[in-house]
């Protein structure tokens, strides 16, 4: 990117290459559910419960899970679009929002986000160039320079500035709008970009274009991605490491090859087994799981997956399993799984088809 913008001299590598760019510790967010006569709190949604992870510099961490698993809430907590109830976020060694660390604003300069809905995330009354130039302007860049920068970014994401800079969101296609959203996220020269279902709403042919664009940008701008998606194939394609979430908790995390080739958690395995095969000769015949994910308002005690797990034992209801090295088989030590039962984690059970319980 051009050197036109040096908003924050600290955007260089502060912690050194070994310092993870992002460390998240015991992040927690409960939403109150109000109701009844006096609008009292009647329940809590445990949207994100004790989630810890890290993202290394230059890597892509994929977060995968079904609706209600807390993946989007996690993203919003990281950006401080919501305030966490508990937990620490450490950006390149600096705790965010603490006196000895960096402010939320400083963090946001270095960490930006792209949302799923390309239309609602753009201001309908601003042209593309204005939307992209908005943040640099707010951070003190002169208007002319900011617009020049927007043109530069439009070209970078594969749009023609002469053609698209003055257009409004309704004049663009979904794929083009998502490119603009990516350009806008890059306007402050961030080091990390959170992509929350950024390609989910796009047609397949356009999705592939945007995925290629994201890979190119990551390479040329040395970005770090947090890639959130429900699409298992896309997460595998984009990520270096993967984190699987279920009802607000992390159930499994590790390098992408290890997770996809040897999934340990019964939920992860069921998730992969639910993936359409794309091969009419090898159609799915057994339901990997029955029912929907439970309501996060009253999650099951202990292991939250136990109500749908074929292996569940008494211990699963008693206490939540910690994220730890797998109990059976030799595994990659960086591959962690939250499950009490060695039998359930055994790779030999991978195709046991024993998940269905009526």
């Amino acid at each position, binding site marked *: 990117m051009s050197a036109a913008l040096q908003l924050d001299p600290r955007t260089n590598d502060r912690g050194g290459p070994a310092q993870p760019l992002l460390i998240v510790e015991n992040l927690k967010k409960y939403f109150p559910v109000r109701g009844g006569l006096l609008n009292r709190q009647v329940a809590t949604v445990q949207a994100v419960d004790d989630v810890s992870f890290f993202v290394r510099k230059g890597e892509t961490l994929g977060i995968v899970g*079904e*609706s209600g698993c807390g993946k989007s809430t996690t993203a919003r907590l990281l950006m401080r679009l919501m305030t966490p109830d508990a937990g620490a976020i450490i950006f390149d060694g600096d705790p965010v929002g603490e006196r000895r660390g960096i402010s939320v604003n400083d963090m946001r300069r270095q960490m930006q986000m792209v949302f799923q809905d390309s239309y609602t995330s753009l201001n309908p009354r601003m042209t593309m160039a204005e939307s992209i130039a908005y943040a640099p302007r707010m951070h003190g860049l002169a208007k002319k320079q900011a617009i020049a920068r927007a043109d530069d970014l439009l070209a970078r994401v594969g749009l023609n500035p002469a053609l698209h800079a003055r257009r409004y969101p309704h004049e663009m*296609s*979904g*794929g*083009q709008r998502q490119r603009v959203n990516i350009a806008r996220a890059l306007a402050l020269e961030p080091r990390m970009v959170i992509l929350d279902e950024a390609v989910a709403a796009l*047609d*397949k*042919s*356009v*999705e*592939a*274009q945007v*995925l*290629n664009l994201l*890979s190119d940008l990551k390479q040329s701008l040395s970005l770090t991605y947090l890639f959130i998606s*429900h*699409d*298992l*194939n*896309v997460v*595998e*394609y984009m990520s270096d490491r993967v984190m699987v979430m279920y009802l607000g908790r992390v159930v499994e995390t590790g390098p*992408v090859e290890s997770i*996809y080739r040897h999934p340990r958690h019964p939920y992860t395995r*069921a*998730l992969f087994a*639910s*993936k*359409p*095969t*794309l*091969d*009419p*000769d090898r*159609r*799915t*015949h057994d*339901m*990997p*799981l*029955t*029912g*929907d*994910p439970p*309501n996060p308002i009253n999650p099951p005690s202990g292991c939250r997956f136990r109500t749908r797990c074929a292996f569940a034992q008494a211990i699963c209801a008693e206490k939540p399993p910690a994220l730890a090295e797998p109990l059976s088989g030799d595994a990659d030590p960086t591959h962690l799984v939250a499950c009490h039962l060695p039998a359930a984690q055994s790779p030999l059970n991978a195709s046991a088809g024993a998940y269905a319980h009526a």
Partner: protein
Amino acid sequence: MPDGTMMPPPATDPVLRVEDLTVRFVRRNVDVPAVNGVEFALRAGETLTILGESGSGKSVSLKAMMGLLPAYARISGKIWLNGQDILSLPPAALSKLRGGAVSMIFQEPMAALDPVYTIGEQIAETIVQHEGCDNKTAMKRALGLLEMVKIPSAERRLKNYPHEMSGGMRQRAMIALALACKPAVLLADEPTTALDVTVQIQILLLLRQLQQELGMAIIFVTHDVGAAAEISDRIAVMYAGRFVETGTTRQVMKAPSHPYTQGLLHSTVHGGMRGQPLQTIPGTPPNLAALPLGCAFAPRCRYVQEACRGGDIPVIMKPDGAMARCVRASAMVEA
């Protein structure tokens, strides 16, 4: 325009035969040709998937078959359902048909179900309307239907409002509602798109199983190649209001001959593609109001040649029964 787009003649009489269906949305200044000559035939117990991206005309085709298009839609062609032309039916006969011989399920069950009536009431209402039985019998039938779509504790769920159910459960309830009067043809408009993967596969398996039990024909509209591979007997790939390729699921998925189908399959991310750049289709789907002459895909096609840009594009029937609407496919067959 009997130009061979039709699928090969089925062994038994088709329940549904669509001939040269065109739909144009005409308003003061715009004339948008959304469907441009769709032809196919569908037998009982068969599943045809219409695969296409947004704006390809797949949902509009379905809505035409249900008579659900707005007044400014100009529809022509013939839609024969059990020997009766739907498009020439008076409104009263059409509404008897809807939910009777033809019914439809939608992407968003929350929007398709009525929020102020219980699931049981909605299913019973349909049955009473179409079959004229009393409410009590209809309720009993509704219970049986909920059990058929495998809703647990069906008796209790009968009294639930749509908002009291989970997404997968609502989709099952909508399927039960659609099947209430044993339709000959079920139209499914992206019914699994809004669902989680683990629920999506359950619904696909359920539809497959119900079809075997009830013998209905299904038209399944989707943009998801994975869902298409799981459910269809045949696939029709739609682009800019036309079927550009049709064939059995195996033919289309394993040996696609239209460049658009090839591009669509290549740009669909599947397992084991890490590290390779995705082959994409350049450009964006065409503006229907300004379709190019000749092949609508030509501006994005890597094999484009002079013959693609004007005149009628030949429809090539391959020896194995698959069809492709492409200049290049003819060369491939001759070669």
